[in-house]
């Protein structure tokens, strides 16, 4: 197993001083907005996302209500969030794909059949972008959905994994990398992987760059392992919040 840290001594450190298998700092809070049904704030390094949930609530639909709850995702990328100010239109293909990916991922993990004819609205505000945007959105949405008390089979946790050399250099000995920041994302091939819980069930897999097929397995393995770590961190956040809440209630 080449990914075993003990036998794999790597002198190389990344630009921000991390090793190949280290996550950036993840900081998360839940129940940040009292007025929303569920809300969360998540930082993965310098990527900062706010998520709010409205619902499940009955909203008049054009096509008539189905037997399952519908999940709607809204993503708002702040103008100041990136390196340069860029105006994004509502019909931005990239944002549309993220919305679709998130809605799809949660419609399989949430027990939507418990809420027929209703809609669950996930609203994401991106305050700062520094790589792993889709992963941060998925993680923030998971936390907010837990806060909203919407039943789910397990957490959906996500992170990115990349490879140390670009496609064109065709380097056979390229190593996988975990949790890329935006400068790394710009140069290196990477994928976003989201798993259902700590197991190996991959529920989201998005790759927009090119890499040799031989590197894929390593990247995926590192990504799934990263998701396991992310789940542990998010679970701690939920537990700490729950404990605080339970202890503060005077029966």
């Amino acid at each position, binding site marked *: 197993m080449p990914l075993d840290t003990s036998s794999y001594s790597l002198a190389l450190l990344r630009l921000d001083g991390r090793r190949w298998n280290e996550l950036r700092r993840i900081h998360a809070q839940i129940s940040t907005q009292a007025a929303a049904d569920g809300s969360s704030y998540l930082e993965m390094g310098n990527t900062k996302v706010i998520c709010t949930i409205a619902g499940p609530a009955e909203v008049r639909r054009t096509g008539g209500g189905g037997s399952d709850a519908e999940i709607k995702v809204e993503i708002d990328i702040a103008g100041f969030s990136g390196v340069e100010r860029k105006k994004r239109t509502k019909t931005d293909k990239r944002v549309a794909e993220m919305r679709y990916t998130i809605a799809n991922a949660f419609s399989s993990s949430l027990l939507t059949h418990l809420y027929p004819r209703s809609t669950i609205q996930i609203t994401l505000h991106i305050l700062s972008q520094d790589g792993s945007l889709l992963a941060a959105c998925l993680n923030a949405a998971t936390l907010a959905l837990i806060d909203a*008390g919407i039943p789910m089979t397990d957490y959906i946790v996500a992170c990115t994994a990349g490879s140390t050399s670009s496609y064109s250099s065709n380097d056979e000995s390229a190593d996988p990398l975990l949790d890329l920041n935006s400068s790394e994302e710009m140069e290196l091939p990477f994928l976003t992987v989201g798993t259902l819980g700590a197991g190996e069930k991959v529920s989201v897999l998005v790759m927009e760059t090119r890499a040799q097929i031989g590197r894929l397995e390593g990247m995926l393995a590192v990504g799934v392992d990263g998701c396991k770590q992310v789940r542990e961190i998010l679970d701690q956040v939920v537990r700490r919040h729950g404990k605080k809440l339970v202890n503060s209630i005077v029966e």
Partner: protein
Amino acid sequence: MAITITPPRPAAILDPSYPPEGEGDNDDDYFDPDGDLQMAGRPTKRAKTTSIVTPGETITEDPQWMRGHGTYNPPNNTKILATVAGTLTTTNKLLSIRPLRARYAPEIGDLVIGRITEVQTTRYLVSLSSPLLSPLPLSAINLPGNILRKRTATDSLNIRTYLSENDLVAAEVQTLHADGSAGLHTRSTRYGKLRNGVFLRVSGTQGGVARGRRQVFELGDGVDVYLGVNGFVFVAQRLHGRSASASAGSAVAEVAATTYSSQNSHIPPATRWEIARVAGVIRALIESGVRVDEEMVRRGYEVSLEEDMVGGDKEGVGYLGGEKGRRIVRRVVGG
């Protein structure tokens, strides 16, 4: 048929530190924050702490348990997993999880306060902040004149004159539909359109409004408090006749005539003060995460009166927030 609900009892294989029976509450919502709710087959890593479960956590693999709300059973498996973050409760052999926070789930007999969101030909749709809107049929409200009158086509033409969009109503959950929505009725003099008061919104399934013996009660000098189980609270000027002399026929007719008025009556300043005080007490209770029910509100009201009598502090007589609010809540909880 008599149904007895025995107090929750631990599973056969138990930690000896489990509190013995007969000690503590025999509420069917057993929850002991310091206790050790450990079951057969349950992971032991968090034995001594507050029992919080999170989604995806295996609660038990023992097939003897039945799964209730907030749990999930993966196909081809006897495992029971949690689907929400909350506290675990056991009722006999039924495992259920009370979420830390969730939307209101209606139950038959609940007093709720709702806002009319839509008026249809023969019914209203009421928002209770539950996942679905709840229908309130025209046949389930008291019409002015005679309560036992038959509904006519004229009544459904005049449907908006009784209640219209954005009106607040106090109602009772009469039926539960298969999809989880609630059928409401207001066929009692205690229920109906709300006016002459202030509305408060309280959230949370733990803390928040607790189901109690009485959800509508009189308080102090001329104030009615409506504690909706769905977390909506209304504090209003006392409605003469609605709660006191509901049985007298003439009073009913008189009440019915003003029941659907949208105009606030004249509320004397003294009553306005009282309403503000009660609302302040409820807000202070919510802020500290204390359950809100008749007993707590009554005690809070009395304590706030005493505070103002003794204090004479500069924080203002009517203001019940901040340090003063916390002081009141501490005294309420302390007994």
